[in-house]
């Protein structure tokens, strides 16, 4: 009997002692995570765009609330002066960012009195707490909201992602914008505090500490002044557009939304990225009811959360013509020394194989004949009827002769390939999440789309009209404003396409450089730089030669001081009013910029987008800003 007991004791206490000692230690020590201060986001001049501020946050834990939910919410409603049903709806959060077992931040920035009341009435307010927490703060308000993005609790999908190893349910992560793109730089490493606890989990005092590693600071290429300028110009231009009568729709312009982007063509650095309407990012520091979400961010409000610069896809209209011209020049479809007629309409050539086929007529933007002109002038005056025949020539090339067919060649689509060189039809790989691809349609795309959606997309065959409409940026062509800006940067920079970016560098909390964004520019456009220079020079005519599309919009502009080459665009998006585009390349004071402006339902390019772009350019070069006035519609 004694032998049995002693043997067992020997085993437990001598042979296996180490294991049990560790288990005892684990039992008695609780480790509490100390969140790391999130990094600050600054602009290129060091202005803080996002930092952290200690705020009193009222949180509610839904699990602890239990059956008392209704009573507690009524009490909170009286305390906070927010309707109880609104508070209840906030618990469910429109974006579903919060887990059932984690406290939901209902109100950020409650008063000390509210905090005291909650602390004193802990028993009657189960699950309710007021904590002083570091909350994202935006010193410039909504400036740059789309670029900066916001935070939310990590999604289940991300938790499974090996890139988010170490994250736990309930952790805050950047969901969009820079907060999302540079999450791993900004987040830092949480610290740990070790406490001794008894079996009830009561804290018996701290026994160790691992300090949190604060997140790194992210410094952007964004210039807060330029950003504010772009946002203000966009807003003011849109407000003015809403007073402009649109003859084609018989109503004032809706001008419901817009986008503007400013970048450095030589590096791809984005200096400003504005999307209208915008939002107050500080709203996302708390939970939000579906009703409030819909009221603030619904489609009726033109989806303010959408960053239209990277996630808005539009037909580019005539802003596409320079790239078509570049391709046509390179492929000898047109030349720089010839003059081409610009009639009021152009009829597609007679189809010999099918005499009964309808003859398609393609109109210029103005019914009047503008006479003969070279390609440069055709760009400045945006003559559609000079571009349509180019499209027909591309259609001719599309056909494959039997010999080629025998070698497996199915089609020739040189225009699509050349447009692809400029970056159209694929993401720019900007360092921001949720970028759209745009679209360069080709025969293959049309066929597969038709096969996938035979009802909504009844035609699967590639027609001459597809090539013809592509030359004026219509048909099924779609671009994002950032793709367009990048492509104009390539014209400006002699065929080099730069990956656009908002990151300048990352630095540690003690201001030492962690890494710098290395501009990623490649000479991917296989077009003779002479043609690109020709086009760039031709585009200066848009804003300065008499009768060109944007001359009126730029009247009085000091071109001697700052050279501007631009292109208007009026994209048709039936049944909506026309979308207004303007793309510009500027050079002055030793600085080059590309500015692209889009206004949804803003009418002609010269009417709305061009004056906004002019305002931005004036601001960029420190020129006095011109007032918005009514400008007659040209393409």
């Amino acid at each position, binding site marked *: 009997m*004694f032998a049995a007991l002693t043997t067992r*004791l020997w085993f437990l206490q001598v042979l296996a002692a180490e294991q049990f000692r560790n288990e*005892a*230690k684990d*039992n008695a020590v609780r480790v509490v995570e100390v969140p790391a201060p999130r990094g600050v986001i600054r602009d290129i001049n060091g202005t803080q765009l996002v930092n952290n501020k200690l705020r009193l946050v009222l949180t509610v834990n839904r699990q602890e609330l239990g059956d008392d939910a209704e009573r507690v919410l009524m009490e909170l409603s009286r305390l906070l002066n927010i309707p109880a049903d609104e508070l209840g709806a906030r618990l469910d959060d429109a974006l579903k960012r919060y887990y059932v077992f984690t406290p939901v931040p209902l109100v950020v920035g409650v008063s000390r009195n509210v905090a005291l009341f909650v602390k004193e009435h802990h028993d009657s307010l189960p699950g309710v707490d007021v904590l002083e927490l570091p909350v994202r703060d935006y010193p410039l308000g909504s400036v740059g909201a789309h670029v900066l993005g916001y935070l939310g609790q990590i999604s289940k999908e991300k938790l499974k992602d090996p890139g988010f190893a170490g994250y736990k349910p309930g952790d805050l992560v950047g969901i969009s914008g820079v907060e999302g793109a540079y999450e791993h730089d900004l987040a830092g490493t949480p610290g740990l505090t070790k406490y001794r606890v008894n079996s009830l989990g009561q804290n018996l005092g701290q026994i160790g500490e691992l300090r949190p590693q604060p997140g790194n600071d992210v410094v952007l290429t964004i210039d807060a002044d330029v950003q504010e300028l772009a946002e203000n110009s966009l807003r003011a231009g849109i407000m003015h557009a809403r007073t402009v009568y649109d003859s084609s729709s018989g109503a004032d312009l809706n001008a419901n939304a817009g986008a503007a982007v400013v970048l450095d063509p030589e590096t791809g650095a984005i200096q400003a990225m504005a999307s209208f309407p915008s939002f107050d990012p500080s709203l996302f520091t708390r939970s939000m009811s579906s009703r409030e979400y819909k009221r603030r961010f619904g489609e009726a409000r033109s989806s303010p959360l959408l960053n239209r610069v990277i996630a808005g896809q539009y037909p580019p209209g005539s802003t596409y013509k320079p790239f078509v011209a570049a391709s046509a020049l390179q492929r000898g479809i047109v030349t720089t020394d010839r003059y081409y007629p610009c009639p009021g309409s152009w009829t597609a050539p007679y189809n010999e194989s099918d005499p009964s086929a309808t003859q398609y007529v393609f109109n210029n933007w103005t019914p009047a004949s503008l006479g003969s002109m070279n390609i440069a002038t055709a760009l400045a005056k945006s003559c559609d009827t000079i571009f349509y025949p180019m499209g027909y020539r591309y259609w001719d090339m599309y056909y494959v002769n039997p010999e080629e067919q025998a070698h497996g060649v199915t089609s020739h689509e040189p225009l699509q390939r050349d447009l692809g060189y400029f970056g159209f039809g694929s993401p720019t790989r900007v360092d921001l999440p949720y970028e759209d691809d745009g679209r360069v349609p080709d025969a293959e795309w049309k066929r597969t789309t038709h096969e996938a959606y035979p009802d909504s997309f009844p035609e699967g065959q590639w027609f001459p009209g597809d090539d013809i409409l592509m030359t004026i940026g219509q048909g099924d062509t779609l671009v994002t404003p950032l793709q367009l800006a990048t492509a104009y940067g390539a014209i400006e920079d002699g065929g080099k396409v730069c990956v656009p970016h908002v990151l300048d560098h990352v630095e540690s909390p003690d201001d030492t450089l962690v890494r710098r964004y290395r501009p990623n520019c490649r000479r991917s456009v296989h077009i003779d730089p002479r043609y690109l220079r020709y086009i760039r020079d031709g585009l200066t005519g848009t804003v300065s030669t008499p009768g060109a599309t944007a001359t009126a919009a730029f009247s009085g502009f000091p071109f001697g001081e700052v050279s501007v080459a631009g292109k208007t665009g009026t994209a048709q998006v039936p049944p909506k009013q026309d979308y207004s585009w303007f793309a510009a390349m500027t050079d002055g004071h030793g600085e080059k910029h590309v500015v692209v402006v889009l206004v949804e339902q803003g009418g002609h390019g010269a009417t709305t987008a061009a004056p906004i772009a002019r305002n931005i350019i004036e601001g960029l070069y420190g020129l006095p800003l011109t007032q918005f006035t009514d400008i007659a519609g040209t393409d």
Partner: protein
Amino acid sequence: MDLAAGRIVASERRAIRHVDPVLIAAAIGLAVIGLLAIYSATHQSLAAVGLDPGRFVKRQLTFLAVALIVLMLAASFDYRLLKVYAGIVYVSSLVLLVLVRTPIGTSVKGAQRWFELFGFQLAPSEVAKLALIAMLAAFLSEVRGELTVQDVFRTAALAAVPALLVFLQPDLGSSIVFAAILVGVLVVAGARARYLGLLALTAVVLIVAGFQVGLVREYQIERLRAFLDPASVSEDALHNREQAEIAIGSGGLMGVGYLKGSQTNLDFVPEQHTDFVFTVVGEEFGFAGAVVLLSLYGLLLWRALRVAMLSRDPFGTYLAAGIASMLALQMFVNVGMNIGIMPITGIPLPFVSYGGSSLLLNFAAVGLLLNVHMRRFV
């Protein structure tokens, strides 16, 4: 009468000289270890709720004082008187066991085991243990010649009645102690192995039948299962066992030091001042401390068996043997469940566990051992 009284007084004078100091020292030594362990196990959690950290240890100290008086009382009268009154004592203890099942008794954790008396709890099962020992000793000492199979079964019947009553409380642990007392006494009385085998077989059949008709409570089955198949049972039962093993295992060879055990101080072992008090010794004093504790029991049992051998009459021998079996089994089952080689049953560690009834009865038992020992020459 006068003469008889004078003779008794005279023999008392002589008897006191034959007291066994080793036996007393071993019992008191165990009780002192108990006091230390109880304080260690309870002071933190009492202080945490704002109570006097010495609350339990002071109560146990009071019990110990009373227990020493009980020891002296139990040693003072001639133990042969007990043989005369054994029947009355035995029947009284059975009455108490029945009464505790009525609303007079106090229910704790679904088991009715105590009477509340002046703020103290009296467990009749403890009284019944000594009563049974006395009864069996008295019965067997009257048997002439070799034990017949009828004698064995009659003896078993005497033990079965209280065993069944405590089993219904339900207190499986105490039932096992009754069985151990029976076996111990029968072996010393020279029962044939055949008869013992037959008895065991009968017991097994009856126990299996008991399981079938649902006499055994859910938690008892679960505790038993926790021992036989740790993976299959509820977390609570496993928890007891795991935490106890962690506590003892983390003590190592020399222990982590008095009042320094994290398992003990932070309340991780349930019931630690009562059934699991051995874990305090194991954690804070280590293998060395545990061996010292076991040695004290060894000493105690050696002296008890010595008393059985030295007794001048069979009643004294059987009495001592019954007490030795009772203490040995309780010690073995309790330490065994603390270190995970026995199932968890509610058996306290004699002299060490917190609890007045157990302490008083164990000291009373030691008193009886002394009694038999002292009067071996008269």
